[in-house]
């Protein structure tokens, strides 16, 4: 077993938030450059030019790329040979988030009183347990212009995959100009209500252009991306060729009575990153 102090994880989370708040995820930034090159709609091309210039300025001058620096969403895959020591994981992460957000926008508040916590905490932390002695950490700063456009449906089996596909395209259509398109869609198919939602969020960590290792899902992703781009929403909803940069699907077995579908919408400013804490290097061996 390897002991890893939660402070070690927290310190790296702070560093990565500093970085990704100012840097659009590279595969997304590249896809936006390509979108600019192929765009023929004048207004959409103007928007893409401003968006691409903004991404470059944000990196060069280390300014937040978007003022909505989001809620911090963190997924941790914890190796089963790891013992976490020190502060409670959520508390250690929230300390790091609070520190990182001193120069970022504090957008988190109590849902009933609407009083701001002034620290951008709490963050949203998801943990799972895997083989090994390492901890993999994925961090996303999720803006809510896009989060607000997200949906969960619990379809019945008679409606089936065809209805799920229709609703995924419909979600992009209804969202239209609101979530700062071109968008990225994360889709959770199957499981339960919360499992579908969780998968739809996790799917958003995929790199633009990456293939789904499950062939059937890969085909489905390509079909849906094609259909969404045919909607003609375009950059900022001004029309044009590129309405979405990617559709990423995760699936899980579900109940005979249902087909849960969650669609999580992400804006063109994808801000995410990941790192691995190696137990053998950054932890201490404490025997089996």
């Amino acid at each position: 077993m390897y002991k890893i102090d939660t402070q070690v994880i927290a310190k790296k989370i702070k560093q990565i938030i500093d970085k990704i708040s100012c840097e659009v995820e590279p595969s997304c930034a590249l896809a936006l450059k390509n979108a600019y090159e192929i765009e023929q709609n004048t207004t959409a091309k103007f928007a893409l030019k401003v968006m691409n210039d903004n991404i470059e300025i944000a990196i060069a001058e280390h300014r937040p790329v978007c003022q909505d620096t989001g809620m911090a969403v963190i997924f941790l895959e914890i190796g089963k040979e790891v013992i976490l020591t020190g502060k409670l994981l959520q508390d250690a992460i929230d300390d790091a988030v609070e520190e990182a957000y001193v120069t970022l926008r504090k957008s988190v508040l109590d849902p009933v009183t609407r009083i701001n916590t002034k620290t951008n905490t709490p963050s949203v932390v998801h943990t799972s347990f895997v083989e090994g002695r390492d901890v993999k950490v994925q961090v996303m700063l999720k803006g809510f212009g896009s989060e607000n456009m997200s949906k969960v449906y619990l379809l019945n089996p008679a409606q089936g995959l065809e209805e799920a596909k229709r609703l995924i395209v419909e979600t992009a259509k209804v969202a239209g100009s609101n979530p700062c398109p071109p968008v990225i869609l994360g889709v959770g198919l199957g499981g339960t209500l919360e499992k579908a939602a969780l998968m739809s969020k996790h799917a958003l960590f995929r790199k633009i252009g990456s293939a789904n290792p499950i062939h059937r899902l890969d085909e489905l992703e390509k079909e849906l991306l094609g259909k969404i781009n045919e909607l003609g929403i375009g950059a900022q909803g001004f029309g044009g060729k590129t309405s979405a940069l990617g559709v990423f699907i995760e699936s899980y077995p579900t109940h005979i009575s249902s087909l849960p579908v969650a669609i999580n919408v992400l804006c063109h400013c994808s801000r995410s990153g990941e790192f691995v804490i190696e137990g053998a290097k950054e932890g201490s061996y404490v025997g089996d």
Partner: protein
Amino acid sequence: MSVIKLSLPLTKEAMKDLNVGDMVRLDGDMLVFRDAGHKRLYQSILDGKQAFDFVGETIYFMGPCPARNGEVLGSAGPTTSCRMDKYTPYMLDHGLAAQIGKGKRDDASIEAFKRNGCVYFAAIGGAGAIYSKCIQKAEVLYFNDLGTEAVRRITVKDFPVVVAIDSKGNSIY
């Protein structure tokens, strides 16, 4: 791409000449506030004690990041406008000149822009760093306790927007 230069405050005359899809760069002063600021202003009006005046103003729906590296204001891109639709017809009917935000508006708002000969501009969502650089002056005027959602006045230069709803009621979306 031809870009129109306009100075704030906007006159009805100037707005009459703008058409959907026009690319514009704005100079001058605007008010900045979003959800919580609108809610509180609207409540103050309902209570018969209007918190502040907005006649002739242009409102930018935005909540900034804190300033850093010698900035006047931190990142400062638009937020989604449809959440302010509830207040828009009243404000346009009572002298507001224009709004700046992002995304489509409801029918009642579009009708109010048309009825009053006003304009809705779309700023480029997500372009927070660029808009920050356009801001030359910023001060909190009201509702300081709302933090990023406080009411501010900012002075901008070369602020890029697109006419999304024109005074004839045409919408780009």
